[in-house]
Structure formats: structure tokens, C-alpha cells
């Protein structure tokens, strides 16, 4: 590798002795023989330091980079770029006021190493047009989208290609399609044959449906002998005649290239399948989904002096119904309620621990043991508490557990005599509570990705569904057996990270359709406005991602539920309904029956919403819905600013005209 500049005016190492202490550095000049280099080059940077009289000083300088990984600069000023692009090199005298300089470098990108294209096949039909996608990889292994790709064919008379890689065949013959980036090219040889397709048919399975229903368009091309042409190129498209044709709407429907169609507006839609020389079409009638239901207010267990966090509703061993709620940024209190009559919830006990936040509360399956998380302890030993809730009117502490859990425990779950506790946002610990007075750790699970973090864990059927911010959802066998896991030996099953990378909560859903979805909820900060002070509601952002995990090794994100200008938080699924807390967007109930695709919010799948306004709330009249739990026909939910609420979905009423 060439050394482009060996000029060193201050010595080989930038760490030079302070020889002229009496003279104060006031200026530094960073220089380099070149401001451009290539990946792998070595460039020696130099620096000269001067005092106020212009005398050169012999002092220690420090070189550094705007991007340490892609544009590393050693302490002695040797620059060895690892990636192409524009970067800044800096130098400074740490011990002097504002003695600092910089240079902008343009680093040549490495040459292209590899070009590939897709799709490819053996034959190509006259009259067909297929778009090809190229992938360019440079010598550093980086995928490069900035390198121009030139498409060509060996015989434009046989087939021509446009600048987007769309190859169109004109007559029979052999043709080579090439994609070239810099000096590297990929090519594929096609045999262009006469179009064998004699007929094209399209079926939709049904000719009418509701908004949000997924229809499967199936196009079949047959040759003159009635044989199916398996490699017929099919393009799906549609013509929309939505009932609501007001300008500025979202697209009223979509169809993908697998033929999956879904509409979000009622109307008449013509789905088309196109293959060379043939067009087949079917028109379907889409009606509104009509799933809305009224919500009746049932009761409110008000907590107005502090903010409320999570909730759990359970049937006590005495057969009555109880709730526990946590508090957030407050005084370390967990409240216990008798909600047997949800229209008249009664506070029956509370427990105060040394904490500011009891973020999460959970109760064991048998209704005897609760766990509450602790954050903000005055001695910084947070951990969790195991509680005896056999008599919720007289809750007792079984045990405090902070061994190795002094970091804030943000979320917990109880499953099969074990607590799953989020430890310091880095991993989950598994704590055995077969004897709840003697909890002890039996296992832990932590990702190994750089900068990993974890926010939540939820266990169903021996699988822990963990929410891991940028690492998305990770499924861990903690007793299911699919991977031989156990509480003491958690084993990863599968994972999926979405585009946004803010996974905060996850909930599994086995659909009656046979598909297995995991709903991944974001948590993001919302817009902030000047003047936003305490006493005004917070604003959150983010949405829920629906990931088809039917094949756990190949999960596919298929749908979203996004409430404009509100942010997702906790959720629950029961009977094909998603109960979703959307912070300032309130409580939402969503019909998730059937196959899911596209934007569920726009499809009219919302069954109900409830905005819990409390004029005397911690922040008055400001819904900030934290989490829901359907229970015995009622829907309980925690409100950040006003406590525990209960509502009930009313039967859908068809009005008589």
C-alpha cells in the first residue's frame, strides 16, 4: 500500500513532549500531501502548532476522525480509510483553548468486485418484458447502490434492455443480457423462444369481499395443447374505482407480484394479470368492513397524583377478581384493587418500595404470587419484589431479589414458577420461584450483537418472545422443547428485526387461518414543541408491525397498524382482536381476523377506540394509554395520567332503516 505522505514535522508519534511549556499554543495547522485517497492507502497527516508570535511549538497533538470505523486515524496521524466517501480528519491540542484544525478528505470507493442480477431463467418469451435487478459489491464487501449500472444485450434485435434492466424480447434467438458496473459485469444468456402461451386465465377465489380481506389472484397460462406454462412471466396490476374518489387519498388498494390483493377503500377493483400477448382480468366488489362496535364505560379506579404504569388482572384464590397497577416516575407504589364489580373498583391495598418506578407487575397463573419491578431505588439496588397475593387485601412481601439485578428491572413475566426479568436493559434473567421466599437465578439469556439492548419479555407455551429494540423480536425456547431449551438453558429459536429497529413489545398470535404472526410494537419519542413543560401530555410515535412467522426461519413482515400522530405501546390479542394501547392515541381494538396484509388502520379494521379523558387526571383530559388486558368480557387498561379503567365492547347493532 502506498504511503502518500511521509512528511512529519512534529515527530513520528503525535505524542510529543511538552518542550515549550512557557509558550502558549494558539493555532494549529493540519496538513496532508493529499486530500484524496483510496481504501487501504496509508496517508500521513502532519500538524504544526504555533504560539501568538508565530513560533512553532513542540507540543503533543491529537489526531482523530469523524468516523472512527470507516476512516480510522492513528494517534500518530496515519490515516487508513476503510470505506469510500467524504470524511473529516481533525487535530487538536487538548491542553490549549480552541487550538484545533480539520481537513475534509474524499476517499475513493473501492473498485467493484462483483455484479449479479436477478431473476434469471433459461428461456424468455417473445413479447415478454421482465425487470432485472442488479446487485453491486465492491472490494471491501460493501453493497453499492451509488455505482451506475449499464445494461446491454448482445443482440438488440433479439432482445433489448432499458436503463432500468427491463428486458424485452423481440424475436427468437439467443441473447446475452449484461449488467456492467465499472469494469465488472454480469451476464446471463437467454434463449428467446416464441411465446407458447395460448390462453391466460385469472381467478380470484371470490368476486366480493370486504376492505382488509386478502384475495389471492391466480393467473394460469396454458399453451396450445392446454399444458400449463410454468415459467410464463406474469405481472399483476389493478384498476381502481373506489367509492370514495376524493383526491389525495392513499392508494385505495394494492396487489403484489405474488397476486395478493387487498383493498382499504370500498369500490370496484379490476385485477389484471398480464403476460405477453394476453391480459386476463377479474373485477371484484369490495364493501366496507363494518366492524365498529360501541364501547361502554364501566369503571375507573382513579390514580391522579402520580403516573400509572402497567396492570395485571387476575382471579384470586377466593374467586374474586383483582387488579394490580404500578406507578411511574413516582413513589414506588403498587396498588391492588378488587375489580369483581368493575363498575366500582375498590382499592384494597398498596405496597410502597424504595423506588421511583414500579414499571411492571405480573401475577402467577395460580393467582398466588406477584412480582413487581423496581427502578430508581435510592441506594441504586433495584431488582424486583416477589409478593404473596393469596390475600390481595393484605399483600405481603415474600422476598426482595436484587442479586445481579441492581440495574433497573424494567419488565417481568411469570411463567411456570419462574420469573423472567429484564436486567439492566441488556439481557433477561430467569429466577426460580418454586419457593417464592427463596428466589434464585437459574438462567439468563443475552444477545451477542454489538450494542444490543432488550426491553420486554413475554412467555407463551415455553417460548419467550423478547423485544430487543434494533435487534427486533427474538424467540427463545425456555421450555417449549423445540430447541431443547429450558429455564436454565434458554436457546434461541428465531429472530426478526424490522426496518425501524425500535421493538419495544411483542405478542404472538396463532390465527385461525393457520398462519402464525408476531406483532412487534415500536416505541419512539414523538414530536417535541417549544414550550412543552411539565403538566402537558407527552407525545409518542411508532406503530405495530405484523410479521408472518409461519416459517420461523423465514419471517416476512406483511402488515402494519399505525395510528397517525400517536405511538404504540403495549398490546394483547384475544379472539382475533388486537387490543392496542397507543399512548396519546388512546385504546384501539382492531379486527385482525383472516389473512393480514397492508395497512390495517386504513382498511377499516378498527373496531373501537376509547379516549380516557379525566378532567382531574395527573395531566387533565389527556389520554395516554399504557396497556390493555381483556378479562371476563371486560376490557381493562392502564392510563398513564389517570389510573385503571374498565370498558366493555357492546354487541354490534345493525340499525334498522
Amino acid at each position, binding site marked *: 500500500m502506498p504511503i502518500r505522505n511521509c512528511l512529519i514535522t512534529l515527530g513520528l508519534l503525535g505524542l510529543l513532549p511538552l518542550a515549550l511549556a512557557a509558550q502558549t499554543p494558539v493555532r494549529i495547522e493540519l496538513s496532508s500531501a493529499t486530500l484524496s485517497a483510496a481504501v487501504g492507502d496509508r496517508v500521513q497527516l502532519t500538524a504544526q502548532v504555533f504560539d501568538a508570535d508565530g513560533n512553532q511549538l513542540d507540543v503533543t497533538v*491529537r489526531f482523530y476522525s469523524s468516523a472512527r470505523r470507516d476512516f480510522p486515524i492513528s494517534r500518530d496521524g496515519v490515516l487508513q480509510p476503510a470505506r469510500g466517501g467524504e470524511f473529516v480528519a481533525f487535530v487538536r491540542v487538548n491542553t490549549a483553548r480552541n487550538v484545533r484544525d480539520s481537513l475534509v478528505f474524499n476517499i475513493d470507493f473501492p473498485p467493484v468486485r462483483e455484479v449479479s442480477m436477478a431473476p434469471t431463467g433459461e428461456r424468455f418469451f417473445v413479447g415478454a418484458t421482465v425487470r432485472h435487478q442488479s446487485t453491486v459489491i465492491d472490494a471491501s464487501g460493501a453493497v453499492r447502490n451509488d455505482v451506475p449500472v449499464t445494461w446491454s444485450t448482445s443482440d438488440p434485435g433479439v432482445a433489448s434492455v432499458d436503463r432500468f434492466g427491463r428486458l424485452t424480447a423481440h424475436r427468437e434467438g439467443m441473447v446475452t443480457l449484461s449488467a456492467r458496473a465499472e469494469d465488472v459485469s454480469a451476464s446471463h444468456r437467454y434463449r428467446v423462444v416464441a411465446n407458447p402461451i395460448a390462453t391466460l386465465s385469472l381467478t380470484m377465489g371470490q368476486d366480493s369481499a370486504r376492505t382488509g380481506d386478502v384475495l389471492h389472484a391466480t393467473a394460469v397460462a396454458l399453451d396450445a395443447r392446454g399444458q400449463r406454462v410454468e415459467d410464463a412471466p406474469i405481472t399483476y396490476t389493478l384498476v381502481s374505482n373506489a367509492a370514495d374518489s376524493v383526491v389525495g387519498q392513499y392508494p385505495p388498494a394494492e396487489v403484489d407480484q405474488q397476486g395478493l390483493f387487498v383493498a382499504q377503500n370500498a369500490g370496484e377493483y379490476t385485477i389484471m394479470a398480464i403476460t405477453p400477448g394476453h391480459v386476463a382480468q377479474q373485477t371484484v366488489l369490495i364493501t366496507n368492513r363494518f366492524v365498529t362496535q360501541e364501547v361502554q364505560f364501566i369503571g375507573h379506579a382513579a390514580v391522579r397524583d402520580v403516573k400509572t404504569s402497567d396492570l395485571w388482572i387476575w382471579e384470586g384464590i377466593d374467586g374474586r377478581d383483582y387488579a394490580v397497577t404500578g406507578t411511574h416516575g413516582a413513589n414506588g407504589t403498587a396498588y391492588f384493587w378488587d375489580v369483581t364489580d368493575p363498575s366500582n373498583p375498590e382499592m384494597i391495598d398498596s405496597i410502597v418500595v424504595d423506588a421511583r418506578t414500579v414499571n411492571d407487575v405480573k401475577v402467577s397463573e395460580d393467582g398466588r404470587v406477584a412480582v413487581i419491578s423496581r427502578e430508581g431505588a435510592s441506594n441504586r439496588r433495584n431488582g424486583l419484589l416477589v409478593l404473596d397475593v393469596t390475600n390481595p387485601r393484605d399483600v405481603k412481601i415474600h422476598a426482595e431479589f436484587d442479586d445481579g439485578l441492581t440495574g433497573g428491572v424494567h419488565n417481568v413475566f411469570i411463567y411456570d414458577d419462574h420469573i423472567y426479568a429484564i436486567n439492566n436493559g441488556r439481557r433477561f434473567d430467569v429466577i426460580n420461584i418454586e419457593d417464592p421466599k427463596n428466589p434464585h437465578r437459574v438462567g439468563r439469556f443475552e444477545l451477542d450483537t454489538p450494542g444490543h439492548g432488550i426491553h420486554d419479555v413475554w412467555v407463551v407455551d415455553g417460548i419467550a418472545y423478547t423485544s430487543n429494540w434494533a435487534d427486533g423480536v427474538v424467540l427463545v425456547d425456555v421450555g417449549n422443547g423445540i430447541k431443547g431449551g429450558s429455564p436454565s438453558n434458554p436457546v434461541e429459536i428465531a429472530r426478526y428485526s424490522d426496518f425501524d429497529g425500535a421493538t419495544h413489545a411483542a405478542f404472538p398470535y396463532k390465527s385461525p387461518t393457520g398462519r402464525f404472526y408476531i406483532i412487534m410494537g415500536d416505541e419512539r*419519542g414523538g414530536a417535541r414543541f417549544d414550550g412543552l413543560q411539565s403538566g402537558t401530555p407527552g407525545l409518542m410515535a411508532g406503530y405495530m408491525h405484523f410479521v408472518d412467522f409461519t416459517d420461523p426461519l423465514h419471517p416476512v413482515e406483511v402488515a402494519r397498524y399505525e395510528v397517525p400522530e400517536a405511538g404504540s405501546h403495549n398490546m394483547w390479542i384475544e379472539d382475533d382482536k388486537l387490543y392496542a394501547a397507543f399512548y396519546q392515541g388512546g385504546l384501539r381494538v382492531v379486527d385482525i381476523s383472516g389473512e393480514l396484509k397492508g395497512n390495517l388502520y386504513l382498511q377499516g379494521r378498527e373496531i373501537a377506540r376509547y379516549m380516557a379523558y379525566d378532567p382531574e387526571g395527573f395531566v387533565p383530559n389527556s389520554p395516554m394509554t399504557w396497556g390493555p388486558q381483556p378479562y371476563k368480557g371486560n376490557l381493562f387498561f392502564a392510563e398513564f395520567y389517570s389510573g385503571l379503567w374498565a370498558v366493555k365492547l357492546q354487541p354490534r347493532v345493525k340499525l334498522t332503516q
Partner: protein
Amino acid sequence: MMRIMAIAALLFGGAGAGAGAGAGAPPAPQGEPEAYLFYVASESEDEVTLLRFTVGEGLTIEKVIPVGVLPAEIEGPHGVYVDPDGLHWYLTLGHGFPFGSLWKYETGSDTAVGRIELGLFPSTVSVPPVGGLAFAVNSNFYGDPEPSTISIIDLASMIEIERTETCTMPHGSRFSPDGLRHYSTCMLDDMLVELDVATLDVARRLDLSPPSGSGAGAVCSPTWAMPASSGEYVYVACNKSHELLEVRVEDWVITWRIPAPTAPYNIALTPDDEKIVVTQKGSAEVSVWRRSTGERIALIPSARKVTHGVVVSPDGRYAFVTVEGIGGERGAVDVIDLLDLRRVATIDVGKQAGGIAFWKVVS
């Protein structure tokens, strides 16, 4: 040749002081001080409060500044420091996903103008007298006990220049008055660490364990290192062994070790180095010591429990002290008159008031 010129740092005439006061604090303005302004971070409220102490009148809240990005999560503002030029203040947020961060705010407008992600639970932050850099200790309060680092950030670009590994659970760091050395403690390793600011390397380490101390775990558990304005000594709070230590910089030895009330935590000195002010986290008091003799001259109860941070005004007249409170209690700020050695004002602020940084004197 394109150059990016550093932002000119203006020396605030007579105003502006680093948090923790003492070392490097610029002189007080001419004239009799009328009021003192300083910032306080409330870790369990996600807010920073700008306070004014008016002589003869008391404490008032100038402004409450919400910090962090998630209204529904506690992000834990911990360390705060005003740039010696008085134009910006810096704040560490302990929690992230999972890493904490350093934020840069303009004074006056209190608008965030920069951010950089650091390590696990960055806590104490300080800026040398010449400005330009911030040293933030990645305390990793809650992670596994393993060596952690000090992040060094170029404040003009908000680029992290270096992470220098020091020890397990670093905390309580300040610069020497000449800005050439940076001192931090190691809560789980019983060490004082000196960094060479020019090279950003560890220059020296000093074992702070009491002579009788042995066995597993920290015995001293030092939580703060505060250099004297003379530069000759560094004072250390042994939070676990309830001691105050004086370390002579020249030969790097402990010159005295005296018992202190329960759990000394943070330290500040008057500019003349005559008084040492120590927060007693365990006993909810502030102790004041005569440095020249090692004699304790006052023990002043705090407004409530868990006394945390302290900064001394540049004129040496007042100590401003944060008090965390417990659970749902509000945090508090106490003002101690260092002449009369008594608490002269108290005001409530957000929960778990901790970091405190002096901004300026108004005359």
C-alpha cells in the same frame, strides 16, 4: 484545501464556571454579587432546573427544562456541567438502548444543539478550563462488574475522540486547575486514576484502600475526586469506609485520611482551598472541613435524605447542594452560607436531584 474552523470560544467575562467549582473556576465578576445561577439535573424526573439564588431573597426556579426523547421512559439525567466559556452546558443521560448519551445545550435558550451516544450509564461529566473537550465517565452502575471507560468528546464536533479504559465503575471526575490532568475514582476498584489530558492515556493509578482493608470487594468505594485550586492535592470521598482522603499530586501519596460522617459522596472546595465541602449521602448532611488542619468545622443537615451533589460559588461564599430524596419525595436544593456555616435556603426540584453545575454570578 478546505478547512473546518473550530468554533471560537468566548471567555465569558467574569461569568461561567464549571460544575463542581473549585478547580478552574473563573474569577467572580466585579461588584457585589446579587445572584447566582446554576443548573440541577433530576435523574428520576427527566428534567433539568435552572435556579437563581438571590442574596437576601432566596432560591427561585428560573426554568424547568424537560430532557430526553421518550416522555414515557425515564432516561436519567445525571451529570451536568457548564462550559467554562458559559455558552453551553452538557448533560449525561444514563439510560438508552442500552447506551447513555451526552447532550449539548445552549445556555440562555437551553436548546439542545448536539448529542452523542456514549457507553453504559455515563454519569459525571466535566470540561477542562480551556474548554473544547468533555470527559464523561461511563459508570455502568448496573452492569456486570467489569472494566469501563471514560469517553472523551470533542465538543465543537460532538465526536468521541477516545474511550480510555480506567477501571470498574468510574465516577466522580474533575480536572486539575491547569487542565493537564483529569482525576476520576473507581467505585468498585478502590482507585484514583489520573489521565494525561494531552495524550488521553492513564498516567497514574493510586490504591485508595484503607491499610486494614482487604478481602473481596471495594472497601473505600471512592465516589468523587476533587482537585484543589492549587493543583497540589486531590480530595477523595470514600463512600463505603466513610473517609475523606487527601492525595498529594506530586508524589502521588495519601497524605491524610480522616473519618467522615456516613457515606461521603461529592466534594467541592472554596477557590482559596481553605474549605472543603462534602455531601454526606448516608447521613443526609453536608460536612465542611478546614483544609489546612483537616478539622471539621460544620455538619449541616440537608433538607431531606440522600444528599448528593455540591458546587461552590466562584466567590467561595455559598455552597449549592442537591438532595435526592427517596421514592416519591421531591428533590431539593440547599444553599449553605460558607461564612455562617448554615443552610440559608431550600427549594424543591424534580425527584432525585443529583448533578449540579454553576453557571454565573449576576452583579
